[in-house]
């Protein structure tokens, strides 16, 4: 643990693989920028890897001021111990107040190890992060500018707000797609700081024997928001609207069987009994009548919005919000409302 350092930076662990940054890192850089501005401090990224210097520019364009580069052949493939050593060494050296990690396979392996070694807190899978003054209900002490770590718990049945009072750094993981991706600003300037971290051979405890990376597939299971289109979308061209809404909201694209059979979209997007079963925080069904086979694959979603011209469509029976109307008119309205939110 480190003592609270009010001047400490807001950090992002810059996860990369084979020289390309994970999308969640780019999203987190934007969030780190926002948090840092609220706190009046700098945002920074920690970039461990082998020959990864070219990635620093992108991190700066996404919003950080400093990039701590740890370039070492021993870091060419991710493994827990050397990466954890990089993080703990730099955290002790620079005393950031907040450290964010993507809730990826790598982030969820690394972050708790770092937290344990630092004897610090760690909140997994935050869906929102805010800065706020908090009064400890036990001691009545006011703590200024704490990180509120907001996450669902109990299988998504409750939302908990977690804080670390005087026990820093404040660390959290965030899933991909939860924070909006801010546009890159290539004109931003920042510093690349080369950091030396001692990595002895004992840290290389694991040997990579074989590796198989699949081309990135549609990640419906992990999506927090899914926008799905059905036969009512009408054409492949119209399906663009579904993609546009998904992009605006930061969600994945799904489809009913009718849309897949109609050739509007590939089968890998199909949701339902014969496709993928999903339970996102928000499911938007546009032009989907809601046959029982489809409902079986999505009715567990926490919130469902149904858009359909037919008032009697069965999809409304599982919906929380129902919009009777033409999706070609409603979706552009939704995109506009989403962009204007806050």
């Amino acid at each position: 643990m480190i003592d609270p350092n009010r001047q400490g930076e807001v950090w992002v662990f810059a996860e990369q693989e084979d020289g390309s940054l994970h999308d969640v890192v780019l999203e987190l850089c934007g969030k780190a920028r926002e948090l840092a501005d609220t706190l009046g401090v700098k945002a920074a990224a920690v970039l461990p890897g082998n020959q990864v210097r070219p990635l620093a520019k992108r991190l700066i364009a996404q919003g950080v001021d400093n990039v701590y580069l740890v370039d070492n052949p021993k870091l060419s493939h991710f493994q827990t111990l050397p990466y954890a050593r990089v993080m703990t060494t730099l955290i002790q050296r620079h005393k950031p107040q907040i450290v964010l990690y993507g809730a990826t396979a790598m982030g969820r392996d690394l972050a708790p190890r770092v937290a344990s070694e630092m004897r610090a807190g760690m909140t997994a899978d935050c869906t929102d992060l805010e800065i706020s003054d908090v009064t400890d209900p036990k001691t009545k002490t006011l703590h200024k500018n704490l990180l509120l770590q907001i996450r669902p718990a109990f299988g998504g049945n409750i939302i908990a707000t977690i804080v670390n009072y005087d026990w820093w750094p404040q660390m959290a993981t965030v899933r991909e797609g939860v924070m909006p991706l801010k546009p890159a600003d290539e004109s931003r300037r920042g510093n690349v700081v080369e950091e030396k971290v001692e990595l002895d051979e004992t840290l290389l405890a694991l040997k990579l024997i074989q590796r198989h990376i699949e081309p990135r597939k549609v990640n419906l299971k992990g999506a927090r928001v899914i926008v799905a289109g059905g036969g009512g979308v009408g054409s492949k061209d119209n399906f663009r609207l579904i993609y546009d809404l998904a992009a605006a909201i930061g969600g994945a694209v799904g489809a009913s069987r009718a849309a897949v059979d109609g050739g509007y979209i590939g089968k890998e997007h199909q949701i339902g009994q014969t496709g993928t079963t999903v339970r996102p925080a928000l499911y938007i069904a546009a032009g989907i009548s809601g046959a029982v086979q489809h409902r079986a694959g999505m009715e567990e979603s926490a919130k469902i919005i149904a858009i359909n011209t037919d008032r009697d469509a069965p999809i409304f029976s599982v919906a929380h919000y129902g919009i009777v109307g033409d999706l070609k008119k409603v979706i552009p309205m939704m995109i506009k409302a989403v962009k204007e939110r806050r």
Partner: protein
Amino acid sequence: MPYDSIVLVKQVPDTANITAEAMKEDGTVNRAALPTIFNPEDLNALETALEVRDAYGGTVTAVTMGPPKAADVLRACLFRGADRGILLTDRRAAASDTLATSYILSQAVKTVGRFDIVFCGRQAIDGDTAQVGPQCAEKLGIPQITYLEQLVSLDGPMVRIRRNIGHGWEVVEGRLPVLVTVIGSANKPRPPAARRVMRFKRAKVMAELAAEAKADKPGAPDDEVQAEAQRRAAAVKEKGLLIEQWNLDDIGADLERCGLAGSPTKVFRVQSIVLTKEGYTEVVATEDGVRQMIHELVIDRTLG
């Protein structure tokens, strides 16, 4: 060569089947009203450990931390073939976050002593954090291998494991001892064995025997109840059915690192999500109608 495994298991509320009755008026979850189950991925961890023992010999010890009722999951382990179960129960461990929990569990593992592999489920369904495994590994000072989907080989002190990394997999090799977290697709956990159920269904921890003695002697003085509990424990032990029960002193835990005192993260606020669904809100297909709906979704944190 034989391998000794320790499996960390947890009893969890069945979060997939939470009903409105399980919510208290203040919006928090009434844990007592929830049915409890064996955390699903911990069953996969147990299965992996049992497969190792079946193939190479050795032992499987199940360890859990929780209230006396958590002995249920230890019995479930015994039914499936575990050699030994240990319940870590102590009021002073209540309100532990993942850091404190992993400290306590790692102390318990150290107290068990010899082991080659510690297995745990990737994550528990009540918190879904996936943190306790890696944090235990750190406290034990051993490497962690997360997301096991296949144990490829064990050869002397070397283990090869295929890890699922989401967008693919990798096979890594490490030297024992290691801590391994197991995912749900790794295997199909075996059902309880009928003969073992017959044998171990009466296996109990001391706290359960004490509660039973108390219930059977209403109004009796404490020392009398105590003596009765001890008598019952001796009888159960005689049959080899006394499940070990440890407290924080038994594992030499530093109390500053346990419970609330040892937990850096504090729950500041809890809001419940409305679970009952009675019809739907009709949104008028106008800009104002849609904007109002999006606003509500931002307020209830469905949208960030």
